Every structure is written in C-alpha cells, then in structure tokens.
C-alpha cells in the first residue's frame, strides 16, 4: 500500500485538494504516513525508554514543582495554595539576591577561564601526534572524579597554611591568600578547583580542531598569514560551533553549580558550622530551603526563577552567537 497514494486521494471525491490543505493538516498527514513505516515504529520503540524516563523523571517532576511553587508545601503535611506569595518573597529574601550574585560571579569567572584553558590544551594536544590518545585520556580522567572528592580536594589544596597551592605560590615569593576563609578568595578558589574537570571541553575542542580543513591553513599561508592570523581567521571561525556549544553548556553547568561548594562548605555538620556566605550558591540555598528548612513550595519557586534566568541567558547567547558562529553549509 502506498502512503503517497492514500494521501493524494481526494476524500469522498469532493474533499479539498492537496494544495488547499492547511499546514497543520499536512503535518498530521505526514506524521501518520511516516508512522506506517516499519522503521519509524522501530525508532519510536527504541527511544521509548528515554521518553518514559523523560516524562516520569523530568517533565513530571517539573510540572509538579510548578504546581508546588504556588503552595506552602513542607514535605510532610498537606499543601495549601498561597498564590504568588512564594514568588513575591523571592524578591524580598536578601539571600536569594546574594546567592544569585555569587552564582553569576562564579559563572563569569569560570566559563571564560575554562574555555581559554581548554582551547590552549586542545591546541597543544593537536600537535602531539602519536601520543595524543594517551594525553587525551589523561586529560579526560579527572572528569570521572566524583565531585564530592573534588570538594574535599579544594579544602586540602587551598588550605591557607599548608595547602599545595600556597606552597607553590610561596616558592615564587607570593604570599597566598586564605582561600577557604576570605570572602574575596572563596569563589576564585572554587573556580580553580572546578577547572580540574576541563577534560570534557578539551575533547570537544580537539575534535573540532581536527575537523578544520588543512587546505584552509595552506591557503592562508600562501596569502602570507602568520600563526596568529591563521588562528584568528581560520581556526576560531571553523571552531565557532564547538565554542558556542561549550559556552552554553558550561554556562548552564556553572549556574547550577552545587557539589563542590556544598561538600566543602555545607555538606557535613562541621562544614555547615563554618559555611561561608561567599560559597552560598543559588542551588545550595535552594537545597537548604527544600531539605533543611522544609520550605519545598518556596524552593520550587526558586527553581523556576533559576530556570527563567538560565533561559534568558541562553537566549541572549543564542542571539549574539548568530553574528559569530559559523556552521558548515551556512550561506552567510
């Protein structure tokens, strides 16, 4: 049976012709036609575990949190509708503003540094040749380290008295700061710690670098371009898609940062005692509100505010990227 034949056959002999169908009807028709294909059904079968997981474990909880954000749910008793009260309180709670500022500062510090270092390492790896597989593995291994361990590592490496970082700085005659107690240095210390796992970004950049056509460099060289000019006018534009992808992904990751700061400053009773306001990131505060203060309704409203912030930042990034990102096959 031909789906095309079915689609073009006029219904009852007097139905609308194909040209007159609305776009919506056409889309439904196409979907129905494709569904009849065995491959399509198989494809849906294979992705169904993900769809089930997405609906039950992501979309469902998101919807539930949206509903909860309009209640005073404490996790134990019954819920009571409070309208927009939780959202109104978000703008009156000074810790929402301070934790959001902490998170934005962390993101602004971390993302450019991570991208620049990853790019530099990827370019080095690209020149290594035979041993590049080994080094790629070495750089990627820290990504496998549990983030809780990285949080503990922060306290050990950045101890103001005996930490390795200050010992190295001391070797150059630089007196190291109190990374774990000085509010001005807590965030930079955490940023440096999270760079431990830049291997994932390095691998993406390395793949992008290997995809840059060699003839573009040859053409640039013939035109008299030096290394810097070739990097600026060939490498960067050719990698712009990968750069944009890592910019978006790392921005979202940084805005949702939790594990390292929580482990170092809030994870245990002892750590909580010495918790530092400079390390109170938005998701850490959200977690406190939900599971320590039992304000699950308020925490749900907080999560939707973060969702809105991430959405706005990502949309801005996508908008700005149109001017800088080059995709293969793009006619611009």
């Amino acid at each position, binding site marked *: 049976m031909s789906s095309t034949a079915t689609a073009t056959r006029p219904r009852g002999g007097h139905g609308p012709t194909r040209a007159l169908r609305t776009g919506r009807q056409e889309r439904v028709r196409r979907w129905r036609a494709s569904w009849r294909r*065995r491959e399509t059904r198989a494809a849906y079968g294979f992705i169904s*575990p993900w769809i089930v997981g997405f609906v*039950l474990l992501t979309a469902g909880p998101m919807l539930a949190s949206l509903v909860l954000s309009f209640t005073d749910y*404490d996790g*134990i*008793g019954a819920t009571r509708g409070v309208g927009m009260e939780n959202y109104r309180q978000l703008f009156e709670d000074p810790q929402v503003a301070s934790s959001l500022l902490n998170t934005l500062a962390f993101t602004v510090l971390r993302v450019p540094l991570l991208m620049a270092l990853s790019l530099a390492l990827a370019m080095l790896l690209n020149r290594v040749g035979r041993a590049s597989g080994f080094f790629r593995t070495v750089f990627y291994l820290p990504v496998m380290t549990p983030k809780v361990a990285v949080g503990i590592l922060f306290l050990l490496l950045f101890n103001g008295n005996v930490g390795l970082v200050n010992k190295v700085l001391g070797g150059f005659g630089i007196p190291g700061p109190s990374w*774990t107690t000085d509010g001005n240095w807590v965030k930079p210390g955490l940023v440096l710690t999270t760079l431990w796992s830049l291997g994932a970004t390095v691998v993406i950049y390395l793949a992008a670098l290997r995809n840059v056509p060699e003839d573009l460099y040859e053409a640039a060289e013939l035109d008299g371009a030096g290394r810097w000019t070739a990097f600026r006018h060939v490498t960067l534009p050719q990698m712009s898609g990968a750069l944009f992808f890592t910019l978006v992904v790392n921005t979202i990751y940084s805005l949702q940062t939790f594990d390292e700061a929580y482990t170092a400053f809030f994870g245990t009773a002892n750590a909580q005692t010495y*918790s530092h306001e400079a390390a109170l990131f938005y998701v850490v505060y959200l*977690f406190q509100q939900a599971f320590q*203060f039992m304000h699950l309704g308020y925490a749900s409203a907080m999560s939707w505010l973060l969702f809105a912030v991430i959405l706005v930042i990502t949309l801005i990034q996508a908008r700005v990227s149109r001017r800088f990102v080059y995709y293969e096959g793009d006619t611009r």
Partner: protein
Amino acid sequence: MAAPLHPRRRRRRLAAAVAAVATLLPVTACGGVVSGDRAGTFTTMGYSMGDTLATARVDVARKVLGTTRLQVNQGAFDEQQFLSAVAAGDPPDVVVMDRSLIGGYAARGAIVPLTTCLKDRRVDVGQYRASAMDEATLDGTVYGLPDSYDNRLLLIDGKVLAEAGDRVSDVDTSDWQGLSRLAKDLVRSKDGKLTRIGFDPKIPEFFPLWVRANGGLLLSRDGRTAHLDDPRTVEALSFAVSLIDAQGGWGRFKALRDTFDQFGAGNQIVRDQIGAYPMEDWYVSVLGDVSPKVDLHTRPFTDRRGRPIDYTSGYSWVIPKGSPHPQKACRFITAMTSPDTWVTAARAKARDIRKDGSPYTGDFTGNKVADRRIHDEVWKPTGNAAFDEAARQLYAAQDHAFSVPANAAGTEFRKAWQSAVNNVLSGEQSPEEALDEAQQRAQSALDRGNTERE
C-alpha cells in the same frame, strides 16, 4: 514495504510491548531497588555501630523486638533522605538525629510525640538529663530520648603553658581581659604563618557557651523568642572574635585548625599546636586512646562570675511519622536509653579499652541514673592523673549543664546565628550588623514555624 500484520499477531505484539513496559517501569523509576519486607524488619536511620558501646547497646536492645529482624542502616543522619522517606510514607522505624533538629521536625509533624509511649512504658522522664530533654521538648511535649550527651570543658596543654611561664590556673574564662593576655602570650607564628593557637574560643560552634558566660541566652526558654541582638550576645561575639583577631585573624587561625591531626597520635596537643580551648568530652577519650602520656589538664568553663557552666548537645532517638512499628519503636528507644543497657555497654567498652592499656574515662549518656551507675560500677581511677582528673571534672560539670532549647525553626535558627558569627569572623559585618540581621531571620523563622504548628 511490509505487509500489514494479522490482527491477532498485532494484539500479541501489543501485549508483549505492554508487558515489557510494565516490567521496565519499576526498574527505571526505582533504579532497580526493590523494597524489602517491611512487616518483618525493624529499621533504624542515623545510628552507627562505630565502637563497642554502640554495638553492645544494640545487642541488648534488639531483644525487645522479639522475632522481628533488626536492620541498622549505618551512617550519619541525612536530612534529605529522612524528609524524602517521610514524605513518601516509607520512613524507618526509628531515627537518631541531632537534637537541634528535633523542634523543626516536631513543629511540622515529621516526628511523633512520645507522650503515650513514655506513659505506656512507665518511663521516668526525670531520669534523663534536663538539658538533653530541653532540646527535645517542644511546647511541653517530649519528642526524643537522648542517645548521646556531649559536655564541654577546658582542655589545657600543660607543656605549652609551662614553656610560656604561665600556670594552668591562668586559664580562667571568667577574666576576659586576662584570657586575651594569655592568648597573646601563648600564640606562636613562623614566617608569617600561625604555628600555635594560644587560646581557641571554638566559635562558631561554641558561641552559645560564650553568650551564656556573659549572662545571656540565644533563645528564650520557651523556644519562641530569639535574643540574638541582645547586648550580651553582641558583647560575647565581639570578645570571642577579638580573641581570634589578636592571634593573627580568622584566615590564619582556621587554616591552622584545619591541619590538626585530631584523631591521630600526632594530634594538636601532642604537637603543642594549641595552648587551651573548650572541647567536647568525647575528645578526652580520643586523647586517652591515641596519646595517653600527653600533659593534659582540664578545667570547667566558667562564666564571668566564676561559676562553672557546661554547654551540652548531642543526638536523640525519635519516632518518625508513619513508623511501621510504632509500639516496637517505643520499646526499642526506651531500651536503648535505659540505665541497664548503658551500663552493660559501658562495661564492654571499658573492658576493650583497658585491654589495650588505655584509660577508660567514663561515658556520659544523658541519663542521670546510667551516668551514676557507670561512675560507681564501671569507671575507676586509672593511675593516669591527667585522665582521672578529666573524668572527675566531667562528672562534676553535669550539674551545671544548659542547652539551646527546642524551637519550631530548627535548622533555620541555628543557621541564622552561625552565619552571623561566620560573617563577623570573615570581616564582612560588624557584630551588631550581623546579629541584627540574624535576629530578624531567626525570629521570622520562629514565628513562621510556630504559626504552622498552631
């Protein structure tokens, strides 16, 4: 293109797909974890069998469960895990938690009152230490029975004091000016780094002790009114922070503290990294175990009028809402906290410790009867003057105990004053600013908690 399926084959395929989804769903949703048979198993949360005392107590108390199997889920109490379990209607039978959390959970109905349990079991509530019960009693209703009881007393490194030409009696917390002088006298630095803390006031964690020493309270006795902006509270914080500032400032102070090998043979007393500080009693046991020959001296912490004060805290057993076996839970927690159980366990612990040649310094249980019986029947002088004196000091301190009362804000209240202290230590706020802000946060959390409760 494939021929259309026969309707019967289509139905069979559909049935197989439904069966597959039905099988996979619980696995994907629950991560493959299948709940055990709850009817025949009694579960605990937050209790660890880390030493002989803990193991021996469980061995005694499990007898009250009869044929029900006891499953001790070891590990520290986890707030998220507990709240999720209660919210899902699948809580453990009994839980051990920090007493400062009890008021918050009680106000929200996450744990049940023990009124009926105590009445049915004819438990004499008076046998428990009042300060432990204050932390577990909200608006006159008891919610927890003490599982541990931490006293605070002054630990002094005699060698450090002698080296500086000071005497143990110079460590006098009633004389704040003298204490400042002593701290400056004992502190040592090398190459711009602190190598010894003279006197550590142990803030933020022991801040309630300094407030009490100055005649104040963080919270009213009924747990409803915060006193964080009280002038006595502000003065106590200003003084405790000035002690740290006089010894090099918080950054250097905390950095040295973080390097202490607290539980090792090279601990801070052995390495003379600290002159004197208030500390919990369990640390005397640690020192007795890992460094019994240390030149340790102990003194009670005194208020500014010279009266001994003992700030206490600890953990308590509670029964969560929806506990599958509430009757057995009641029997279990009363058995775990009874004098007989404590004494049997203390005997086992003392035997173990003495076998290694270490001094047994006694156990402090939160149960007056148990403490007295352990003192009379189990503890005996070891011949190690330092640790015998420590044990005597601790037993004497029991009558001067106080705690921060239970309150409906629970963790929020504690976080409010701890954040204030941390903000002052890091130089971000003055004591007045920090405590004013903390007062607003704490009182607002208390009011909200009490309103929800009522």
